[in-house]
């Protein structure tokens, strides 16, 4: 393909990515930008050019040993829900902007530790970026027409320009805000898009090779299995191979957490914790798809080319060999995508570390504390921009000078190994509060030194001098110091060997020094917060233990330097609102110190933030015991508060209950008064009648006609009867209502009671000419008090008879069965109950207004007593409102 055409394609593609990133920044709140799929795809940044081209290379050379690189992440992904969520939560809380910041904060904003982590990352990642540039350069040469063309100076090397373009891209989208903990949605979106491109085109070439160039997977397998040495390509190679596998898997497990680009996309760019739920299955699926055709593409390449071309680039050579330039271009673009995302994000991550953890804390703090806020912001951005360019240029220089010595796989693994030196400080530090900064520093230095001696040094010496003397004979010719087989361990590959030694010594140092040294109170404080992130959200700003003197005004002046007057003012207002502190407070407390440090962390890193704030406050030393005590207290306070809240809720409920009871009582009291009043009135009426009549009868001067005398005597008799009935009913009702008259409930036939009550009212009915029909005379046993049932039935029947028309009265007695109760009804053909009375007829002394003025025989308590009796049977009594041809009263008794 023509060089210029190729360059045009590259520029067009970059422009397109720029557009995607730009529109994502523009629509940073849209659901297209914020969703779990974009998040999961962005994790695909793990697949760099190393995966894209290198996997094929490894399979060609050493068979399936490429797999552990993917096994680690697959094993790690289910743990994300616990591990990564914790890390994300802490990072968000503290506005952490890089892995260096994270580790430095865990060990009490240790400035040196942050710088050390930054240096380690630079060592590991710079060559890795170079390697990516090399892949671009090599694939460019394969694609270009003039394959023999060798660039003679940097200025006519297309890779240089590509590197510069990538730096511009990273600068543009990576340094828009001085606060590095802000999200970079444009970059993440472009990474997600690139993840699709590289996967898609890799699958396309896989399908092309497997099904177009060959006749499917079986065909390739059959052909390749006939070649010699084939068996070595599909075996793990015994125990030694197994150990190598194990170590490489562990290495990639660590890398998926700690690689700066991986930390960037998975932790810092995470919008919502719940995305993790999708990522834990989407990401392994992505890796699986990526590796689906690796074996077949490699075998296809081996069958076609043997060792005549670099097996890393089989994916390009295969289509080119068949004159399919278009397909080769797609593959090229896929690989290019892998490179761009890796380079851009790695550079961004490194630049933030470089500026916030190395340059600013070690060189520019004084300047900042004097500078103007706007200038400071520009300054911070510029430091980061320069860092980005420096990193990419440095990577380019490494590539340009040592290009021949870099193989995709070896450099990639070396990067993993160097980064993995952070693992003990990171992982153990998350769960063990004793881990100290001193131990962390020592263990990282020791681990890195061991790595340097056992891998970097011999690799470099061999690459540049070609001599294997150091490797073969060891330092000073001491056999047990041979870098690839320290102390006689010679069955491991150089990388796993270096991993074994460095990780063992690293972890050992970390544990020993942590146990030996006590650590500053401040780091114990942060250790508690990181380890106990369960209580973390509730502790928040209060979790920082701090004692000393500080003026709000001083702290504000520091904030103003970085945030500007307005933002600082606003942030402080939010703080004061949140904790309900008066705005004119003069002395700052621990919460404000912590809050202010967090505000600055995003811009200048946690160590610098701490140093700046410490500069304006007079801090007192606190003993470790005191720290732990205060932490314990704040936990206790939370617990006590919780208890208090619960108690208060209980009290409120009790008070409400009491109030209700009081209202009930008062209601009852009033009811009782009314009841007594009514009773008195009801009693007085017959007594008045008797007294008046007696007075008249007793008057000897009176010549009362005999028929009137008889009438008066009869009235007196009636009134006496009424009086005694009334007294009886009142007592009966009172006893029932107070539960004094316990019912004698037995399982017995209701018909017996019904028959008895019919006998009672028989003469009354006969007198009025009312016919009573017992419609359902079958026996049925229900638990009840028979005397009381008779009382209820009699009452209902008496009432019915009373309201029946003379001579034409008809009363029907019926029962039907429900699932758990019997329903007995008394129906008459009288004039029915007026609607306004229906709700009141069971009230005490309620008498219908519509009743005949001639007071009926009742005491006004009959139905109230019925209701009481039925309710004491746990039943119910009511008026059937639907029935219009008379009155129907129904009650039910439960039999279960």
């Amino acid at each position, binding site marked *: 393909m023509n060089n210029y055409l190729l360059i045009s394609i590259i520029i067009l593609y970059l422009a397109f990515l720029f557009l995607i990133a730009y529109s994502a920044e523009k629509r940073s709140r849209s659901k297209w930008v914020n969703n779990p799929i974009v998040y999961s795809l962005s994790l695909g940044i793990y697949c760099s050019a190393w995966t894209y081209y290198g996997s094929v290379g490894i399979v060609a050379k050493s068979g399936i040993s490429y797999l552990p690189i993917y096994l680690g992440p697959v094993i790690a992904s289910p743990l994300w829900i616990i591990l990564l969520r914790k890390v994300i939560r802490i990072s968000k809380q503290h506005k952490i902007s890089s892995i260096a910041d994270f580790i430095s904060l865990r060990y009490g904003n240790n400035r040196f530790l942050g710088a050390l982590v930054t240096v380690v990352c630079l060592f590991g990642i710079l060559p890795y970026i170079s390697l990516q540039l090399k892949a671009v350069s090599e694939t460019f040469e394969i694609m270009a027409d003039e394959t023999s063309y060798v660039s003679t100076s940097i200025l006519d090397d297309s890779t240089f320009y590509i590197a510069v373009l990538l730096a511009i891209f990273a600068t543009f989208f990576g340094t828009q805000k001085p606060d590095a903990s802000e999200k970079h949605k444009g970059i993440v979106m472009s990474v997600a898009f690139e993840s699709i491109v590289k996967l898609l085109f890799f699958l396309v070439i896989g399908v092309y090779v497997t099904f177009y160039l060959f006749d499917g997977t079986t065909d390739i397998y059959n052909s390749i299995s006939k070649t010699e040495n084939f068996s070595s390509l599909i075996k793990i190679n015994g125990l030694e191979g197994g150990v190598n596998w194990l170590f490489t898997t562990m290495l990639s497990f660590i890398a998926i957490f700690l690689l700066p680009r991986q930390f960037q996309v998975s932790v810092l760019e995470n919008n919502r914790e719940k995305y993790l739920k999708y990522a834990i299955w989407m990401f392994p699926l992505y890796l699986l798809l990526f590796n689906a055709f690796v074996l077949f593409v490699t075998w296809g390449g081996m069958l076609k080319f043997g060792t005549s071309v670099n097996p890393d680039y089989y994916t390009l050579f295969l289509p080119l060999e068949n004159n399919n330039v278009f397909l080769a271009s797609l593959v090229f673009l896929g690989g290019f995508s892998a490179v761009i995302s890796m380079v851009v994000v790695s550079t961004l991550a490194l630049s933030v570390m470089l500026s916030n953890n190395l340059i600013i804390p070690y060189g520019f703090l004084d300047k900042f504390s004097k500078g103007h806020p706007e200038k400071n912001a520009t300054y911070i951005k510029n430091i980061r921009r320069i860092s980005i360019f420096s990193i990419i240029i440095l990577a380019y220089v490494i590539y340009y000078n040592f290009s021949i010595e870099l193989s995709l796989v070896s450099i990639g693994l070396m990067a993993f190994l160097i980064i993995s030196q952070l693992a003990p400080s990171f992982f153990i530090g998350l769960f063990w509060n004793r881990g100290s900064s001193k131990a962390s520093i020592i263990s990282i230095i020791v681990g890195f030194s061991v790595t340097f001696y056992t891998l970097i040094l011999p690799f470099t010496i061999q690459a540049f001098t070609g001599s294997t003397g150091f490797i073969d004979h060891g330092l000073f010719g001491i056999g047990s110091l041979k870098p690839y087989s320290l102390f006689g361990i010679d069955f491991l590959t150089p990388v796993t060997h270096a991993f074994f030694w460095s990780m063992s010594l690293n972890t050992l140092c970390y544990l020993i020094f942590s146990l030996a040294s006590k650590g500053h109170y401040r780091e114990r404080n942060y250790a508690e917060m990181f380890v106990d992130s369960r209580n973390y959200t509730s502790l928040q700003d209060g979790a920082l233990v701090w004692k000393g003197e500080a003026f709000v005004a001083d702290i504000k002046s520091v904030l103003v330097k970085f945030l500007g007057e307005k933002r600082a003012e606003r942030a402080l207002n939010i703080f004061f609102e949140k904790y309900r502190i008066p705005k004119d407070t003069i002395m700052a407390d621990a919460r404000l110190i912590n809050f202010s440090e967090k505000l600055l962390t995003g811009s200048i890193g946690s160590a610098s933030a701490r140093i700046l704030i410490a500069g304006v406050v007079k801090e007192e030393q606190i003993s470790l015991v005191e720290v732990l005590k205060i932490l314990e207290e704040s936990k206790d306070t939370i617990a006590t508060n919780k208890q208090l809240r619960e108690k208060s809720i209980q009290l409120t409920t009790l008070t409400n209950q009491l109030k209700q009871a009081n209202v009930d009582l008062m209601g009852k009291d009033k009811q009782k008064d009314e009841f007594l009043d009514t009773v008195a009135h009801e009693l007085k009426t017959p007594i008045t*009648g008797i007294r*008046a009549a007696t007075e008249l009868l007793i008057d000897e001067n009176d010549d009362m006609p005999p028929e009137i005398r008889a009438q008066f005597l009869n009235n007196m008799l009636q009134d006496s009867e009424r009086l005694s009935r009334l007294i009886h009913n009142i007592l009966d009702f009172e006893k029932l209502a107070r539960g004094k008259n316990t019912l004698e409930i037995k399982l017995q036939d209701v018909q017996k009671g019904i028959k008895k009550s019919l006998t009672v009212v028989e003469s009354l009915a006969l007198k009025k000419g009312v016919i009573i029909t017992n419609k359902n005379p079958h026996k049925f046993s229900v638990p009840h008090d028979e005397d009381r049932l008779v009382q209820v039935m009699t009452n209902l029947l008496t009432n019915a008879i009373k309201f029946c028309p003379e001579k034409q009265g008809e009363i029907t007695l019926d029962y039907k069965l429900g699932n758990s109760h019997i329903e007995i009804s008394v129906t008459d053909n009288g004039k029915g109950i007026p609607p306004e009375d229906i709700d009141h007829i069971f009230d005490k002394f309620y008498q219908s207004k519509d009743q005949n003025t001639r007071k009926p025989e009742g005491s006004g308590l009959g139905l109230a007593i019925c209701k009481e009796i039925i309710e004491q049977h746990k039943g119910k009594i009511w008026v059937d409102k639907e029935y219009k041809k008379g009155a129907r009263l129904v009650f039910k008794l439960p039999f279960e």
Partner: protein
Amino acid sequence: MSKILIVDDEPNIVMTLEYAFRKQGFEVFIARDGSEALEILNKAIPNVVLLDIMMPNVDGYETLKKIKQNKVLENTKVVFLTAKNKMSDVEKGLALGADKYLTKPFSVKKIVSEIAELL
């Protein structure tokens, strides 16, 4: 001849009062509740009304109010005769404009003399 209206829903009590007042030469009218009383009042225009309070439909208080509003009944005296004997009830009854407040149970002779005194 003086006219008296007895308003009460208890027939046995009404019967004794009716007998006693007839004997004293009163022309006696009887109503079983307030609404019946109001009907009779307009026609009979009695000199005195003996009024129970707790009655169905229109109670004694309502009846008294209606009587007080009626110009025709300007000279009609109203006496409450009721079982409600609390001080507050008595005060309420008199405040509404009743001429006397008598309570049940009662002595027939006393009622008769109280009424005679009033006229």
